[in-house]
C-alpha cells in the first residue's frame, strides 16, 4: 500500500493532541502534592462564622478524626456536594470543620441557613489566609486530619455519596483505629 507523508500529517497532529489529553486527563487530580501529606495541619487562627468574637485554631483538630471542607456560597460545585455532607452530619459519621473561603459572613451564613449546616464549626477565611497555606486550588476541597492533627488525605472536588463510601470512609475507619495519644 502506498502512503504519502502528506497524508499522515492530520493523523500525526491528532495523535499528538490525543496523547497530551490522555496523559493530562488520566492523572488523578485528587492526589495531594506530597509535601503536605503526613505533615501537621498548618497553624491558623480564624474567626468562627457564627460567633466572630471567638477564634478557631489548629488545636480544634486534635483528638478526633476531622474532615476539613473548604467551601463558599459562590461555589456551584459546593451545592452539589452539600446534600452528601448533610447526610454525613445526620448520620454522625465524622466531625466536620468548614472553611468558608473567599466569602462574606452574611452570604456564608445565609447559604448555610438555606441549605442546612452540616459542619460542627465553621471558620471564616475571606482573605485566603488558611487556604493559601493549605494550597487550596478551588472549592470544594476536603482534607482528612488524624487524631494528632496531621493531614492524611486530600480530596479535590465535590464529595459524592459514592466517593465517600468507596474512597474516604475506608481511610476514616483506618484513621480512627490509630491511637491519638503518643506523639
Amino acid at each position, binding site marked *: 500500500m502506498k502512503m504519502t507523508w502528506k497524508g499522515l500529517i*492530520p493523523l500525526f497532529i491528532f495523535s499528538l493532541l*490525543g496523547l497530551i489529553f*490522555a496523559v*493530562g*486527563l488520566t492523572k488523578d487530580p*485528587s492526589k495531594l502534592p506530597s509535601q503536605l501529606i503526613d505533615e501537621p495541619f498548618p497553624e491558623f487562627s480564624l474567626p468562627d462564622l457564627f460567633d466572630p468574637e471567638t477564634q478557631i485554631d489548629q488545636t480544634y483538630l486534635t483528638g478526633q478524626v476531622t474532615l476539613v471542607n473548604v467551601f463558599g456560597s459562590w461555589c456551584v460545585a459546593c451545592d452539589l456536594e452539600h446534600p452528601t455532607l448533610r447526610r454525613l452530619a445526620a448520620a454522625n459519621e465524622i466531625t466536620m470543620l468548614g472553611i468558608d473561603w473567599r466569602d462574606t459572613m452574611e452570604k456564608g451564613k445565609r447559604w448555610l441557613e438555606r441549605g442546612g449546616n452540616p459542619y460542627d464549626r465553621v471558620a471564616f477565611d475571606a482573605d485566603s489566609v488558611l487556604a493559601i497555606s493549605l494550597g487550596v486550588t478551588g472549592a470544594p476541597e476536603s482534607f482528612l486530619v488524624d487524631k494528632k492533627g496531621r493531614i492524611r488525605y486530600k480530596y479535590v*472536588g465535590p464529595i459524592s455519596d459514592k466517593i465517600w463510601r468507596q474512597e474516604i470512609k475506608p481511610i476514616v475507619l483506618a484513621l480512627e483505629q490509630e491511637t491519638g495519644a503518643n506523639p
Partner: protein
Amino acid sequence: MYSAMISEFGQITLILALLVAAAQSVLPMIGAQKNDARLMAFGDRAATAQFVLLALAFIALTIVFVQSDFSTKLVAVNSHTDKPMLYKISGVWGNHEGSMLLWVLILGLFGALVPIYGKTLPAGLKARALAVQGMVGVGFLAFIVFTSNPFERLSPVPINGQGLNPLLQDPGLAFHPPFLYLGYVGFSMAFSFAIAALIEGRVDAVWARWLRPWVLIAWSFLTIGITMGSIWAYYELGWGGWWMWDPVENVSFIPWLAGTALLHSIMVLGKRHSMASWTILLAIAAFSLSLVGTFVVRSGVLTSVHSFAVDPERGVFILALLILATGGGLTLYALRAHKLRGGPEFTMVSKEGGLLLNNLLLCVAAFTVFLGTFYPLLVEAFSSDKISVGAPYFDRTFGPVMIVLVAFMGIGPLVKWRKDSWTSLKPHLLKSAVVIAVVTTLTFWLGKSVLGALSIGLAAYLAYSTCVAMGRKIKFGQVGSLKLLKAQPAAVWGFFIAHMGIAICMVGITGMSVWQGSEAKRLKLGESITVSGYEFTLKSITPGQEANFQKMTGLVQVQKDGEIVANLRSSQRFYPVRDMITTEAGIQVRFMKNLYAGVGEGDLETGWVVRAYVHPLVVWIWLGALMTALAGFVSIFDRGQRGPKT
C-alpha cells in the same frame, strides 16, 4: 403499575437497538466488499429498524417522565410531580443519560433517512456509509447501556423527585439541546460518507452533491442551536452578556467553524472537482469536534478536570470513542490520501483560491478557540496551577482572524473560478474603499469610537460587496434582470442571505461591544441610576408564588428626557426543591436598542442590587445569525447541487 413495565420495555428496545446497530456495522460492509446485493440492502433495513427501536426507547423514557415514575432513578433525580408538563418532557433530555438517548435517536433518524433519500446513490457507497453510521451507533449505544443507562431502577422508591435544575426550566433551553444535537449528529452523515468514500478510494463531485444538503442541514441546526444558547444566556443569566467565551459555548462554536469550512469546500468539490482532501478532513474534523462538544458538556470535563476522574468509567469510554472515530478516520485518510485527485489546477487569485483561504482562516479560527478553551485544562492537568482564559484572549486572537476573513468575504464571491487577476478586481476594491470611508466617518461622527466605526465600516463593506456579487449575477440594471433574479439557483440565494446575515450580525456585535452602557448600584425604592441617558428607577418590589417557585418581582421604570419609555419587570426566583435562586431579567426588546434591568438580592433597609443596561443593536446579532441558518435551509433546495446532473 404499568409504568413498571414501560421502563423495562425501554431497556429491552435499547439493547435490541444495540444489537441491530452491531449487525448494521458489519453486514453491509461485507456485502459491499463481496458485492452481495442482499447484504448491502440489509443496511437499509437495519437503519430503519434501529431508528424505530430507538424511537420506542425514547417514547418509553418520555412516558416514564410524564408519569413521574420515581422508581426509575433518572426520573427521581431529575423530575418532580410539581413540575409543569413541558419541563417534565424536556427533563427527558435535560440530564446526561437522557440527552445521550436523544443523541442516538437523532443518529438513528439520520441513518433511517439515507435509504429514503439515497435511492440514487451507488449501492456500495450507501452500504458502507450505513455501516459506518452503525459503528457510531454501536459506540454510543454501548456507552449508554453500559455506563449511562437511563432506565436504571431505584430502590427504595422515593415519594417525590429531586426536581430539575431550575436554570433549565426555560422554554429557550428546553429546546436548545435538540437543535444543537441535530447539528452535532448531522455531521455524523458527513463523517460516515467521508469514511465510506475513503474505503472506496473515490471522492467525487456526485458524492459531494449528494452529501452537501446534509451538511447544510446539520450546519443550519447547529447555527440555530448556538443562537438559542446565546439568547438564553442573555435573558436568563441576568447580566446581559450574549456571548461569554464560556467553554460550553466554545465547544459548540468550534464544530460550527469547522462545519462552515466544510460546507464551502464541499461546494467547490461538487462544482469544480477540487478540494477533495479538504472536504474529507473537514468532514472528519466537524464530527470529531461535535463529539468533543457533546462529551465536554455532558461529562463536565471542562468545568473541572476533577469530574472527569470522579467518573473514570465514562471518561475512558468517551476518550476511546473519540480516538476510534477520529484516529480511525485519519488513519484511513493517511492510507488513501494519494488516491484523492487534486482536480483541475487553479491560481491563487481565483474563486478556488479564495475558498481555500476561507478554509484556512476558518481552521485557524477554530484552532484559536480550541486552544483557548482547552489550554486551562491542560495547564491544570500538568501542574497544580489554575489559570483561566477569558474574553481578552479571544478578542485578541479570534477577532483579527475574523476581520481578515470578512475582508476576503467581500472579494471572494466576485472572483472568477480557476483564474482571475487583481486588475479586474480594482474597480470593486476602489468603490469598497469609498464605502468603508463614508460609513466609518459617519459612524465615528455619531458614535465617537474609532474601533466601532471601523468595524461598522467593515460590515457595510461586506454587505455592499455581497449585494454587488448578487447584482452581477442578475446583471442588475440591465433588461431582464428581474427574470434573472427569479432564475437564480437556491444556492445563490443561500450565499446572499448568509453573507448578509453575517454583516448584520457583525453590526450587532459591534454595537454591543462598543456602545453598551451598564451600571450597577444598590437602590432603595424610588432611587434611580442613569445609563447612556436613560434613567432607571426602582419603583416597587412584589413577592409572588408560582407552581414550583417563589418569586420577588422588581419593577424598574425607565425614563428618557422626562418621558416614560419602559416598565421593566425583573424577578428573582427561588426554587425550594433544588434550593436554587435564578434571576429573570426585565428586558424591553427594540430593533435599535434593548433596555435591560436585573434586580438582585436585597431588602427594604439597604435597598436592592439593581443592574441596568442599555444594549444597542443586540437583536441584530441573533437576527443575523438566524438569517445565516435560514440561508442553509434555502440552499438545500438547489437542484443543480443535488444529485447527479441530468
